[in-house]
């Protein structure tokens, strides 16, 4: 066993209201720079939709992620030989238009325009060229199903849905959508790290954050191709690639990442997971149907004596093990099993898990032409959900519908149990049956409810101390400089000393 600690995340999609506060918080801190304007290390997509960059999930186009290669995995569009062959011409790079051309408005015109009969306007100008542009796309241009004939209908996850199933999704009575906030997954088997010819990308040993060394990056942009989530971006101004850094300066000082800290819906959870690094290769190369279970199996029980001993032997601090025991991610992913990885078929073993959304039951038009949105039971049930289970399975379980269904059943059981606990208007048998179908019990349902709805800041973000004081001692002898810096004089005082 080679136990390491990994900062992992859970996004609870049922709670996401699509306000983009996370994106703005991130943008204001990290990507409000020349060359980075088009980057959204955190973005929120509407699903169904094509996302950002357009159709990022379609690896036939972008050649990202790993593919199974016998008993191993190989990068689809990058790697040693493929990367070398394509070093000077990477054939699967997204262009700026696949993201969008960033723009601002010429606000100064509002103040400097000569007096006239018309109101002055602030024209949009490109942040790349500075010329006036015709704004045709943005990072969330298809928000709330806007422009759905162009965007939502081209959703890559529709590939397994029949044309009739797809068409029905766009009927007024059945129409539905949810949000999908995305940041870098800080994967256990990161394709970006595997693809970099310069060795500029690395996964931090202490917490698994994946970073790009800006001094070693040589702009080959293999990571842009290799990341199947398209979360590595090329900065055209600096000539280096950049990506989400999980706000590591904030993590090191005990603060939650900005996107999580600012989340209005409080959908985000962050905590430590302990995993066995020796098994990464085997897990990434498992059969597609086993991928989710295999990945969940790599995370270890932080209460297990053997795991704790092995973790300590590997240099993991006691405080980190304590954080792993309190980790909300461990609860969602391992204890309750209601959070799933996004697109596990990319085989990067992402460390960002999603609680799938419970979407409203469908309405119907009856024989008399009456639009009927009532359901027999309180929430209609998982089977009558508007969004086909196939669609959610394509997002979260590589096509395994049963896994998504089980999660949704448990979430429904929690709701029914809490209805029973707070209002008490449901027959006891119905509540019992829901808990049985959801494979849960009243105590677990209460725990899920508590962490979902009432969790405090410190419960949602269990950040292990970074122990920077120990890190710096590995690099230099701090005692040598003790007493040398700190309070002093710029000009020597006339008396004293």
């Amino acid at each position, binding site marked *: 066993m080679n136990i390491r600690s990994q900062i992992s995340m859970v996004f609870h999609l049922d709670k996401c209201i699509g306000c983009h506060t996370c994106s703005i918080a991130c943008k204001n801190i990290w990507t409000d720079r020349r060359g980075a304007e088009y980057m959204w290390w955190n973005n929120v997509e509407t699903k169904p939709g*094509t996302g950002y*960059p*357009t*159709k990022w999930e379609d690896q036939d*186009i*972008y050649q990202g992620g790993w593919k199974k290669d016998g008993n191993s995995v190989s990068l689809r569009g990058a790697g040693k030989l493929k990367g070398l062959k*394509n070093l000077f*011409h990477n*054939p*699967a*790079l*997204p*262009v700026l*238009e*696949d993201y969008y051309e960033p723009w601002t408005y010429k606000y100064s015109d509002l103040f400097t325009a000569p007096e006239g009969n018309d109101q002055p306007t602030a024209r949009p100008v490109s942040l790349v060229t500075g010329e*006036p*542009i*015709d704004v*045709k*796309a943005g990072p969330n241009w298809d928000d709330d199903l806007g*422009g759905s004939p*162009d*965007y939502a209908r081209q959703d890559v996850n529709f590939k397994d849905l029949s044309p009739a199933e797809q068409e029905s999704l766009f009927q007024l009575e059945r129409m539905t959508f949810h949000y999908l906030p995305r940041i870098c997954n800080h994967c256990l088997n990161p394709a970006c790290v595997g693809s970099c010819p310069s060795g500029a990308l690395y996964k931090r040993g202490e917490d698994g954050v994946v970073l790009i060394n800006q001094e070693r990056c040589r702009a080959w942009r293999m990571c842009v191709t290799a990341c199947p989530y398209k979360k590595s971006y090329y900065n055209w101004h600096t000539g280096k690639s950049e990506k989400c850094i999980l706000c590591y300066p904030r993590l090191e000082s005990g603060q939650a990442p900005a996107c999580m800290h600012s989340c209005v819906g409080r959908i985000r959870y962050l905590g430590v997971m302990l995993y066995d690094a020796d098994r990464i290769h085997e897990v990434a190369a498992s059969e597609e149907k086993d991928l989710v279970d295999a990945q969940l199996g790599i995370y270890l029980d932080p209460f297990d004596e053997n795991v704790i001993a092995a973790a300590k032997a590997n240099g993991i601090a006691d405080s980190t093990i304590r954080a792993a025991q309190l980790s909300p991610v461990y609860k969602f992913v391992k204890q309750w099993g209601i959070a799933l990885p996004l697109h596990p078929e990319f085989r990067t073993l992402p460390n960002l898990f999603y609680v799938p959304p419970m979407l409203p039951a469908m309405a119907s038009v009856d024989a008399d032409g009456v639009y009927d949105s009532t359901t027999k039971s309180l929430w209609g049930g998982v089977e009558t959900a508007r969004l086909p289970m196939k669609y959610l399975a394509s997002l979260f379980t590589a096509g395994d519908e049963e896994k998504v269904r089980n999660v949704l059943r448990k979430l429904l059981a929690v709701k029914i149990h809490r209805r029973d606990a707070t209002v008490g208007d449901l027959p006891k048998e119905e509540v019992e049956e829901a808990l049985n179908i959801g494979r849960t019990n009243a105590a677990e349902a209460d725990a899920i409810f508590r962490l979902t709805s009432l969790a405090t800041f410190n419960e949602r973000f269990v950040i292990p101390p970074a122990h920077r004081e120990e890190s710096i001692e590995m690099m230099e002898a701090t005692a040598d400089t003790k007493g040398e810096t700190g309070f002093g004089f710029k000009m020597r005082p006339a008396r004293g000393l």
Partner: protein
Amino acid sequence: MKSIPSARLLPWPFLFPFILLQGPVQAQDGEALFRQNCAACHKMGKRFVGPDLTGVNERRDKAWLHKFIRSSQTLIKEGDPTAVALFNENNQLVMTDQPLDEGQIDQVLAYLATFSKPAEATASAAPAGPEKPIVYTADDRAAGHALFIGTRPLASGGAACISCHNVNGASAVPGGGLAKDLTDVHGRMGHAGIAGILGAPPFPAMAAAYARAPLTEAEMHQLSAYLEEAGKAQAGRKPRTALGTYALFGGGGLFVILAAIGLHWRKRLKGSVKQDILDRQLRSI
């Protein structure tokens, strides 16, 4: 100031005779300059590659001579009738521009003036008796060919002729286009002219190239033999220009490379994934 003591140490007494003999020394300078810059093409008392220069001071005026020596090509371009006539008389072979200053040209002309009467010609510049007939053997021609195309290196290690010169039929690939085509050079200049130019190249680039790598007499003879044969074999044919062949090879090569690139990366992403979406939108500006 530090140079003063060392100047005092100069052997002034020994230099004195040379200072007294300044006049003759100057004439000797003219002779040296002539040998260095002119003798490859000009001989006194007989026509060589260029015309005989005996009595040239009387034939032309001084200002014209200065201009012509400095840059005969400029005079020809300007349409000076004498210069153009000379150019045509001498197989349209241009005289190289001479990097001499006014004083040096005067020295050379002063030296030439000593030949105004053929009787006064010194032994060194006079034709040395009846010339031996030049005989080229088959071995000479083969050796010359090998030297020309570079399969046999020059004894001094200098660059092969083909680097800069073309001779039709010398090799499959045409020779360099930097310098003049030499296919009919033997017809124009003969053995003496070729040997003269090879011995003391009057062209700046060639002079620099062979300054430290002079050809041997045997090599000059062999090259001359080869050039005579090449000139005869190619007589009357149009000179093959390297430019066209290179353009053909270059263009063809480019096409092959582009085709290979296009084939290898035929599945590359071309344009934006959502170009159809962008195209569908109305323009507002």
